[in-house]
């Protein structure tokens, strides 16, 4: 489940439609029932506002949340859903673990010989998006919405340029979640091609769109550094799934996503320069000194 905007850079006092995708980042499979939403809110400049349910509407498979921006600043919006349960055959459960990248649980089942076990999973989803209104960068990006699981950026994503890292903390029940698999994806317009195992697609009708998905793991403090390689829309997603010992249930999962936009805001030449890793510049500097040394040594 993801919160998405057509543009993550908005003007004050403008109408915004936040899309709630229930499915993948690219496709919403179905709408979320209104009574499932425990929280749907927007935070800016220290003020948390509930999104008026009268301004929600559903169309086909997507839920839309209407909202009007106020003063300039960095906004965070979140939606948290009530838990639901689903029963799955062993095969379906294993397929889901593999397809959604819950690889630790899949490995656990393989190691313990439980691949043939059916599952009844209680799941809930908690999603956030961060967007920028006007030019003024404010502190709302690091707001903890108090969801069972949530990503908290440690710096404002709208203060980032391509080539920099975004430090993110992952909390589970308000505590850092260590060693958790996190997938970082992006949808960017770029001229670069990498073929090191990333998935990517090209859409010639809309230019040159590059979809990328990479796998990371939080450290012992629940932290990870997300490399922001280019401008575009970025997202983080994770599924924390554990076995539980409750009547009628075998597993419990909490899903979290975070979406935000990254703007280059500068010329192509400069973007290319910022995309290069630091060590390239160190090497260039050393080479430059070496060339200068050769030049002066030859002409002494």
């Amino acid at each position, binding site marked *: 489940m993801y919160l998405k905007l057509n543009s993550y850079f908005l003007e004050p006092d403008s109408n915004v439609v936040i899309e709630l995708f229930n499915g993948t980042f690219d496709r919403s499979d179905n709408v979320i029932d209104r009574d499932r939403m425990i929280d749907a809110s927007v935070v800016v400049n220290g003020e948390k506002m509930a999104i008026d349910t009268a301004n929600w509407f559903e169309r086909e498979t997507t839920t839309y949340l209407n909202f009007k921006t106020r003063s300039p600043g960095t906004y965070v919006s979140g939606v948290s859903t009530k838990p639901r349960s689903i029963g799955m055959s062993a095969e379906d459960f294993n397929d889901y673990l593999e397809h959604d990248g819950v690889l630790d649980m899949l490995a656990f089942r393989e190691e313990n010989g439980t691949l043939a076990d059916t599952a009844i999973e209680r799941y809930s989803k908690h999603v956030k998006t961060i967007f920028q209104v006007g030019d003024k960068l404010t502190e709302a990006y690091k707001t903890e919405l108090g969801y069972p699981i949530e990503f908290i*950026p*440690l*710096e404002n994503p709208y203060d980032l340029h391509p*080539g*920099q*890292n*975004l*430090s*993110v*903390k992952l909390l589970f029940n308000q505590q850092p979640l260590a060693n958790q698999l996190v997938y970082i994806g992006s949808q960017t317009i770029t001229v670069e091609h990498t073929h090191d195992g990333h998935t990517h697609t090209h859409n010639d009708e809309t230019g040159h769109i590059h979809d990328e998905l990479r796998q990371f793991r939080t450290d012992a*403090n629940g*932290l990870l*550094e997300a490399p922001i390689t280019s401008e575009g829309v970025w997202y983080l997603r994770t599924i924390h799934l554990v076995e539980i010992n409750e009547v009628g249930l075998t597993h419990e999962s909490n899903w979290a996503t975070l979406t935000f936009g990254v703007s280059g*805001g*500068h010329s192509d030449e400069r973007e290319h*320069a*910022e995309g*290069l890793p*630091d060590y390239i*510049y*160190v090497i*260039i*500097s050393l080479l*430059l*000194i*070496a060339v*200068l*040394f050769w*030049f*002066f*040594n030859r002409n*002494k």
Partner: protein
Amino acid sequence: MSIKKSILSLALFISPILANAHDVSGVDRLLLENGNLLTYIWVGAKHMLTGYDHLLFLVGVIFFLIEFKQIVKFITAFTLGHSITLITATYLEVSVNEYLIDAIIGLSVFYKGFENLGLFQKYLKISPPHLLNMVFIFGLIHGLGLSARLQSFTADQEGIFLKILSFNLGVELGQVLALVPIVYLINLWRKRNSFGAFFKAANTYLLIAGIALATYQIWQFLGHS
């Protein structure tokens, strides 16, 4: 392409690494939020070790210094200068524009290369200002840059004075750790015939790097103002 144009192009190309010299990651910020005074020492030392612009200026300063006593004297002047502004500006919460301060720090790197290469006499027909005074003044400016950085990741004012002192101690430790191998290498090379060429190459690089840093920071300032 003329030599001047070549130098300007190189300066613009290497500017991002120099600008990144002051990057303080969110991880550092979190460490400081949750850490003790030792954490401030650690982050101060790390900041200095990766603060290429401070180190480039110091490299320029120590090029002319041969005796250990001289090195200690000049580094002390720099340390005194940056400690004064780091401590007072942070404690009094005096905020300066980071881009402008970093641009001036870039110009201090350029200045040192310009002076070392004897370009004051060659092009301006004047003697350069007294080096010890200039090192102290530039120390004050570098301290403002360090203060701006410390203020950007220290929100909690509780025990702020000890935090500033710890960060400053870390900066000094990082400075010593970085300078020991640099001084050793320069002095080792000083005995070789090729030292003259190395001296010119390194100081020409300081000119380029100084222009690069100042240009990049001014550009950033204009983009954020």
